[in-house]
């Protein structure tokens, strides 16, 4: 099989996704027999002009949100050359944390409000609203998470680059992947376009905490109580979005007593994560009349910033910035 070409790029965000690729338990260098890394500026240097000498990129892993012209231009350049484009991490997939700025659109993020640019180089403009990669171009696959777990990263890389020939198969990741995706990888063919390298159900499906179908009478802030170990956080009155969020992380946050904040995006059968959470919380309220329910609802602060912490630009039905998955 001829070698495939790989490009990796991060727009606005942080280096955690790229570090995740680099850190795939030091197996990333074993990709060498299958892959030529033709563009990875964070690690290898190189310049945009280098891309002009590349006929085709078989796989581009794009991380980071689109917050400015420079990000959008990078996305367009890479999309033009790439056969397969993966949105890697919550920022690229859904807008991620940088997308929270859309709740405060007056925050332009301009360098200096009244700066004299005479003799100084101009900056690429900021664009609002912040968007995920689907807001600017077609995305073939998504690896969610902030950052994505390394087993899923590794599964995606092997699925798209190694044609079923990679030495280390992905059994350790496949258990959390939908059947169709795992089967495609095992068969050495590309998964269906649009596939998400994560589970289908909610995080609750793989969370180790037990649910007792108990209702709660008041919300608690995480600093207010020491949650019972082993019991569902939501049933203890702590906001946890596991029920609305795609699984695949194995409940990493809930395992240390921190509620899920939805970095994997909405689960397969969820239309809107915020609406799902409102519904889930409402049904867990111990309220028999509207006044009690209203009182409980009033205790909950910042629903938009919580329920769409990582997904505001691409998955909030009311504020979606662009192309849908």
């Amino acid at each position, binding site marked *: 099989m001829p070698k495939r070409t790989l490009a990796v790029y991060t*727009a*606005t*965000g*942080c280096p*955690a996704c790229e*570090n*995740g690729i*680099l*850190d795939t*338990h*030091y197996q990333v*260098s074993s*990709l*060498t027999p299958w892959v*030529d*890394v033709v563009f990875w*500026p*964070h*690690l*290898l*240097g190189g*310049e*945009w002009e280098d891309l002009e000498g590349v006929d085709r990129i078989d796989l581009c892993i794009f991380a980071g949100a689109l*917050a400015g012209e*420079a990000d959008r231009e*990078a996305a367009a350049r890479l999309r033009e050359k790439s056969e397969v484009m993966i949105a890697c991490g919550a920022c690229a997939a859904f807008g991620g*944390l*940088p997308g*929270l700025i859309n*709740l*405060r659109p007056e*925050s332009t*993020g*301009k*360098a*200096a*409000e009244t*700066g004299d640019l005479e*003799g*100084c*180089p*101009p*900056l*690429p403009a*900021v664009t609002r609203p912040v968007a995920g990669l689907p807001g600017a171009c077609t995305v073939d696959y998504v690896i969610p998470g*902030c*950052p994505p777990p390394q087993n899923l990263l590794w599964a995606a890389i092997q699925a798209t680059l190694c044609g079923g020939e990679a030495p280390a198969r992905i059994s350790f990741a496949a258990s959390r992947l939908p059947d169709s995706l795992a089967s495609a990888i095992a068969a050495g063919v590309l998964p269906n376009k649009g596939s998400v390298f994560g589970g289908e159900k909610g995080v609750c499906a793989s969370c180790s905490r037990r649910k007792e179908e108990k209702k709660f009478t008041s919300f608690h*802030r995480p*600093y207010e109580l*020491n949650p019972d*170990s082993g019991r569902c956080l939501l049933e203890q009155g702590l906001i946890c979005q596991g029920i609305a969020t795609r699984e695949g992380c194995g409940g*990493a946050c809930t*395992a*240390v*007593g*921190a509620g899920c904040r939805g970095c994997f995006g909405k689960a397969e059968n969820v239309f809107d994560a915020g609406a799902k959470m409102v519904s889930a919380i409402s049904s867990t309220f111990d309220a028999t009349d509207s006044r009690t329910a209203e009182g409980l609802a009033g205790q909950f*602060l*910042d629903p938009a*910033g*919580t329920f769409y912490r990582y997904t505001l630009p691409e998955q909030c039905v009311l504020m979606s910035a662009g192309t849908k998955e």
Partner: protein
Amino acid sequence: MMTTTILEPLRWTASPARVAVCTNGNGTGAYYQVIAPRNAERLCVGRPVEEVPRILTILSPAHHLVSALTLDRLFNVEPPPPAVHMREALVRTQFFKHHIRILYLLLSSSENPFRETGRVRRPGRTELLPLHVLEEIKHHEALAQEAETILGGRADHPVSAIAGGVGRFLKEPHYDRLSEIAGRCLEFSVSTAKLLNETLFGNSKQANRLFDFTLPSIPSMASSSDGGTVVLRGPDGKEIERFAPADLFDKVGLEREPWTYQPFAYVKSKGWRSVFAGAPESFFSVGPLARINAGEALPTPLAEEERQRTAADLGAGPYTTLGAAYRALTIELIGAAEGMTDLCRREQLTGPSIRVIPTEMGRTATAALEAPEGLIAHWYEVDDRGIVQNIQVLDGAAGNNALRCLLVRQAVETTGAVGMNVKDVKRRIEEILLPF
């Protein structure tokens, strides 16, 4: 008429960045530009304050911990010793991983680490280090990452620290595993320092490349060794000012220039002036070299031994060369692994309690922390419901932004003087910026 040459994208920067070299009738000036704003502070306004430790990890993993410290101050709680040790062990592990990664990037900088080693070699090229060293570095980085996951819940974006402590006790298998990882990291850090001293720092061609570059002469800022105060020192190493971490944002301001999205940290008492206005005393640097240049004995024996060895090789500090910045990383690498070894013991991480539940909430709080990348600090102002109204953040990128701009300008001037081509200039700039 102005002509501009753009060098982009730069390697190894946390945010997309480039260098713009502008030439007009008055001469040539180089600008280090961060070209995408992260607006981390603005993401936090309107959020419940307890969510900030999870949001600001976008800046670096250590921001999770300084944010938790700020919450401790806001809620006026002192975490119990096991929680303090768990947080401290996490910081030490972050130091190890951060520093070993920078050394990996330096050592692999002139080669593609994905090349088919053993099959494709550049004619005439001799490897500086045995090829397996890079693989060993990645392996130990993975080990540190595993320790981070145990201690922080997740590695790059930890979630375990909360106001008053940490979110969970460790589990039984964790104690032995942490201890094992710490021991292996310590052994590896000592052998890596020895190897680097013999090959990289002792190799005249490579050493000249690093030690011939003199850093701009600006003050430095670092916490005292006990963490109780923050000290501003002049380029000569003499103390200019010492103050409590709680006063940091009274002393340090953040300002912006129209040609970069990255704010500049500056010394308020000196006033804000453009970074190129010829007032370097208004700025400061943070990070490993700033800490080593404090000239204080280190609390761990092997790191102190390495510091003394550096002093024997380079003379007494303060050190002002690029090579010294890389040696500071190796000293701190050993210190971090020693810290991990000391803290990752069962007796340090166990106790009857791992958190204190707050009973009160203030309106403002400040905390500072020595992170791998340098001194970082947070200040929060909240309303009576604990919703963030205002926030200030000093991160490593802002702390060193002036230094990085000066470094870039100096690098362009020195490389331009010897007629280096554009690609080599870019590579040289990346190598110079890497330890900062």
